[in-house]
């Protein structure tokens, strides 16, 4: 499966490291260190606008090709597609792998 399989429950991990079918709760957004052409703070705002915000429960539904990128994530009642690189700005707590 994926490279970062061993998460400790209760410890924040990056959404970009989750594999298919994983369920998690978003605990924070942190865009530092993400390579993006956007202005500072813009990626965070866009993530919130797509419903990726603290407290939301997400589930990884689909993975792209190759290198399982991008990923499709269910957020409450809609589905968002995003690349793993940007998903790394979303810090989650894994509920179920």
């Amino acid at each position, binding site marked *: 499966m994926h490279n970062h399989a061993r998460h400790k429950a209760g410890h924040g991990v990056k959404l970009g490291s989750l594999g298919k079918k994983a369920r998690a709760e978003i605990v924070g957004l942190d865009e530092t260190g993400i390579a993006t052409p956007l202005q500072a703070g813009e990626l965070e705002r866009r993530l919130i606008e797509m419903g990726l915000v603290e407290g939301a429960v997400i589930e990884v539904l689909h993975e792209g*090709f*190759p290198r399982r990128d991008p990923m499709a994530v269910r957020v409450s009642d809609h589905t968002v597609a995003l690349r793993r690189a940007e998903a790394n700005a979303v810090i989650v707590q894994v509920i179920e792998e």
Partner: protein
Amino acid sequence: MTHHKPPPPPRIALVGNPNCGKTALFNAMTGARQKVANYAGVTVERKEGLFVSPAGTRVKVIDLPGTYSLRARSPDEEVTRDVVLGRMEDEEVPEAIVCVADATNLRLNLRLVLELKKLDRPIILALNMMDEAEKQGMTIDAAELSAALGIPVVPTVAIQTGGVQALLDQIDRTIQVAETEGFAPVHAQCGWSEPNAHDLRDYHREVERIIALSVTSPTRPHLATHRIDTVLLHPAAGLAILLTLLFLMFQAVFTWARLPMELIDGGLTLVKGLVDANMADGPLRSLLTDGVIAGVGSVVIFLPQILVLFLFIQILEDSGYMARAAFLLDRLMGGVGLHGRAFIPLLSSFACAVPGIMAARTIENRADRIATIMIAPLMTCSARLPVYTLIIAAFVPQRDVLGGWVGLPGLVMFALYAAGILSGLIVAFVLKRTILHGAREPLLMQLPAYRLPRPRNVALGLFERAKAFLTRAGTTIFALMVVIWFLASYPGAPEGATEPAIHYSIAGMIGHFLEPVLAPIGFNWQIAVALVPGMAAREVAVGVLGTIYALSDSGDSLRSSLGGLLAASWSLPTALSLLAWYVFAPQCIATLGVVRRELNSLVWPAVMFVFLTGLAYLAAFTTYRVAVAVLGG
């Protein structure tokens, strides 16, 4: 009693997330009474319609581009923001806003409603697709929602007869209230300012509170969509299906369109026969048969193919598959530095590069956008279809290959499309590695639930296309053909001429003048003549060839089809060379014009023209030389 000019009809703006069924609602409200134009100064499509409300008021509706927030990120979204804020030049601020929300997917839609409420204008929330929400086991308490939001909320089913009645009634009430209270001043101070991350989180909490009060959702919504996506988004199966779909699309362009094309052809021959039989020989008869019927007719005959292509694109768009295609291809296109979202402009470019280049506006990053725009003309547009079809029909034998289920002409056509796509990818790769390097824009998009495309919406879309195409054929192309006919007919042949009259005409002179430049790639002077007006619109080139060959025909032999004439007068290498030329040729002023405006630069269209012409010449030269060497001149 003096007659007062009636006050202008009140205007309603439709605002909503992408994929909320806004256009279906717009179609349901206005029917075919729509007007598609552009906003002043920008190339965003402006859709306006008119309906008569139940109380008898004429109301104007504007369908604004879909957006998640008023914090505009792309030129499309800027239009929505500027219109609702009253900042748009030449555009009155709407009297009321109808916020359209997908009832099955309320969260993101309600955030936009909260933002719109800051404007202090009359707002109505239309809960669209209520039938689907109910089918999924959702219950939405519209009264509770209305109380929590402080605005009227009406459920609608845009795709059902009478499904928008409640909304129309509410619009009447809202207009009445607004009229008695007086419309808000146009440039009133509004309470909206660009939200920061903190504000957005507040909106989000408020939405969660409201949803908890008024909505009960099933535990697993959109189960069907999820199941379909397990297959369609599968890394292997999904990509295979996407490729198959594209292949079927191009195959269908040929097979489905054959019968209607034969009918049109038969009709044209009939009309030509009637004109020949009933008119005295003279310039007018020549103008009608050689200029109008041969010229305009050879363009009109491609209407079925263009409609089949648009039918596929429309269905893929309406069903929600387009976003999946972008998902499937994002990483692969990332290999050459393109954004997954570039897929939609590139696919539209198969219809026409102009809307394709405009669709690239959804890519916010400039370098990504330029790369997409530069390769859009390499995606074979429908205007090149007439040229391809004509030459393939004339030179490629109708033979079945691959076990009999694929025709050779279809295969050649596919190869031409593939050549365009492949060279586009190579060009993008080179551009992104050299002058346009940099990180890609994030891919952050919703995968909407699958929906069955509504025949009514598809039909309306196709009707618009057909109308536009025929209008164009009847106006611009008609006028061009008449002029071409004139240039190809005058001055007439001198006494004792040995060649057909067209040889001595103005068009003939232009063709002979250009011939030396084009001779190395195997083009004769007739093709040279066709390429010049082909700059205005590629499909015109076919019409010109039709006129030229009709005029150079000796006359007494019964004229067969243009394809037959070409097969008799061109060598195979010349035909192949022209095909190769058209894969690359930037033979379209409209495309160069839209590139200039979209990128607000003269440099990029110039670069595009030079590099595409160079590629076209090189490809045609190579094809011609290789073909001559292999097949003999």
